[in-house]
């Protein structure tokens, strides 16, 4: 074919692709911000007690896939709600946790966000600032459902003094330990390690070598669901001060990272990576496989153990700490869409109220074994007296949420990178945290 034909063909193709790429996004629907804040005020006055007459249909999204208990429990709660409120129809959809955020964001950008939705517990200001979620102050004035909740959690639901979300689920991480392994190593199975020295000592005694590697790991901080910030907090360290200035390379944090690296060095980088690829590649817990004697993991592991290794002889203890007994909680809130019209927001608030009331909390917690921040609801459940779940309920008093920093929202990634580098001995802990401190400070300074 003649070359000129090819050239003109290529140009045409490039022009075609350029044209299709020029997508004009409609100006995002967030531009009208003032209107929805007044709407709930007007309708909140008749929110409590009176049933509305007009039928209303709302959408509700949650983060459980169809195969999970959470999905079934929420559906039965929603069904119950619809029975009690015949004029409200609820369309419930659950997307698995990994698909949830992209789907939610796409829907929000398309103006089709659900009326009531789950979202992460620790970054409410992110959505409050852009007026994506509705202010709940007027609803709460009529129905003060947050009374009795832990003040520190309630504070995290606020932005600029107004409340924007209701906490729904928290999680708790503790130290799981294998009592059988303890006995074999000559340790008292009723005395789990309580501080860093003991943890180190026990980890050494529980490790079993094999060949050039390890058959069993005593304790490695990067297994399970520990995360560096949790360890730093137990040493009294903090990543930001009250004015949200970064304190990433504070003395306490450097101590914590030193200790983290010291634990990992019990195994060495190469041997540990080999262990990891063999044992944790499928996301199955090494603790259940009995390849790790102690692991810091979340309350969900208890169910996994019951299902997959019911006769495992194990115990649960607070995370070993130096100064502060604390643990990390992630979790989810319920939030109402700011762009929904007032009638739907009303109905969404009713559904929200129903889902977090004490009876619903009892059902939800007992069926899914997740922990609720509603203290009165939790008191109704039998979880506190359960031998395996009880410690988690007790420890939920000591939870701490990860900081949200508007000017450096991905600070946790920078800290994780620093930890990586320190573990691989690319940098010393001091250097690694200094670097993270600088990166985060720069992000804050450059924030527009």
């Amino acid at each position, binding site marked *: *074919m*003649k070359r000129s*034909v*090819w050239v*003109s*063909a*290529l140009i*045409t*193709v490039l022009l*075609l*692709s350029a044209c*299709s*790429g020029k*997508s004009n*996004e409609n100006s995002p629907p967030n531009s009208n911000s003032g209107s929805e804040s007044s709407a709930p005020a007007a309708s909140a006055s008749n929110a409590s007690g009176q049933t509305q007459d007009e039928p209303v249909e709302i959408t509700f999204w949650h*983060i*459980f*896939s*169809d*195969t*999970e208990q*959470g999905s079934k429990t929420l559906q039965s709660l929603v069904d119950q709600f619809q029975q009690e409120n015949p004029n409200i129809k609820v369309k419930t*959809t659950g997307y*698995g*946790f*990994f*698909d949830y955020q992209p*789907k939610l964001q*796409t*829907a929000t950008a*398309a103006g089709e966000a659900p009326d009531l939705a789950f979202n992460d517990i620790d970054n409410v200001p992110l959505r409050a600032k852009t007026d994506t979620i509705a202010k709940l102050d007027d609803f709460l004035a009529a129905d003060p459902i947050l009374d009795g909740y832990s003040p520190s959690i309630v504070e995290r639901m606020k932005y600029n003094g107004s409340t924007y979300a209701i906490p729904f689920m928290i999680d708790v991480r503790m130290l799981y330990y294998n009592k059988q392994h303890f006995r074999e190593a000559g340790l008292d199975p009723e005395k789990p390690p309580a501080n860093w020295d003991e943890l180190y000592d026990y980890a050494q005694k529980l490790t079993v070598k094999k060949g050039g590697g390890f058959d069993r790991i005593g304790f490695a901080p990067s297994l399970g669901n520990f995360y560096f910030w949790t360890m730093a907090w137990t040493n009294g360290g903090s990543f930001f001060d009250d004015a949200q200035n970064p304190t990433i390379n504070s003395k306490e944090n450097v101590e914590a990272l030193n200790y983290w690296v010291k634990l990992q060095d019990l195994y060495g980088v190469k041997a540990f990576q080999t262990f990891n690829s*063999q*044992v944790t590649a*499928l*996301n*199955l*817990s090494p603790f*259940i*496989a009995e*390849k790790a004697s102690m692991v810091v993991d*979340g309350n*969900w*592991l208890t169910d*996994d153990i019951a*299902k*997959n*290794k019911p006769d495992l002889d194990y115990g649960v203890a607070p995370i070993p700490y130096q100064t502060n007994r604390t643990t990390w909680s992630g979790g989810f809130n319920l939030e109402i869409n700011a762009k929904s019209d007032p009638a739907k927001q009303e109905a969404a608030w009713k559904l929200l109220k129903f889902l977090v009331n004490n009876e619903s909390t009892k059902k939800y917690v007992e069926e899914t074994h997740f922990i609720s921040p509603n203290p009165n609801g939790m008191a109704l459940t039998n979880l506190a007296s359960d031998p395996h779940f009880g410690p988690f309920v007790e420890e939920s008093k000591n939870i701490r949420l990860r900081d949200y920093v508007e000017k450096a929202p991905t600070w946790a990634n920078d800290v994780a990178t620093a930890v990586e580098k320190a573990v691989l001995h690319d940098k010393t802990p001091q250097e690694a945290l200094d670097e993270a401190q600088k990166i985060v400070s720069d992000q804050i300074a450059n924030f527009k």
Partner: protein
Amino acid sequence: MTYGSTWYRSLFTHLMLIVIGSFFIMPLVVVFFTALKPGPELYILPPKLLPNVYQWSNFKEAVMTIPFVKYTLNSLFIALFVVVGSVVSASLVGYAFARLQWKGRNFFFAVLIATMILPGQVTMIPLFVVFKQIGWLNTYYPLIVPAFTGSAFNIFLLRQFSRTIPQELSDSGKIDGANEFRIYWDIILPLTKPALAVIAIFAFMNTWNDFYGPLIYLNDKNLSTLALGLREFQQLHGVTWNLLLAASLIAIIPSLVLFFAFQRYFVEGITLTGIKG
């Protein structure tokens, strides 16, 4: 060549093929046995291939945990339309490129081939925006309609194939007074059946396994396809591997059946275009 050396040769060839074949089928074997394991056995390390307990009920449970039948019917619905669309569009356009003379034919063929250079990731976002603007999100239209507009690969395949048909056949039709469409429909189309079969099979398999299209275009769970439905096995804190693999095995059965029934056409597809689809 004596009888003896032929016998050795045959044995050697077969052995080699069996060994290499078993390497390729090993993943499927592992999937099969893992799908039969009860949950606790997944945690046995180092992993054992054969389960201690053969839990055949995993297959039943996998099918019952997600709306399997609905998803299968959805996948079939989309796949059928895509197959029809692919075959129709490719044969019509391929005929035009191969057997008709028209101004700019070479130019547009070059454009067609050049569009194969664009990777899907480049066109994905503009396409999504277009579909959103015309309101086709959360319907099957974005998945089906593009098949009717022709795919460069299929058109290329049909064009090449059509060119191998002797011009005399078209001429004989013309002499008998047929118009172009009748020549296409009655003479050329039946002769291109092998190529059409290849297109149909590849179109079916690609649509059946398509995860990406349904992921971005379908929100409503009722519209979900089988490939997307398998995602439901991924839970907040882990994956129920045995159920997921059991469901996956069932999901690939149509593709397997299709392949074994129409092996010949797969090979023909590769020899015709040198592209493995």
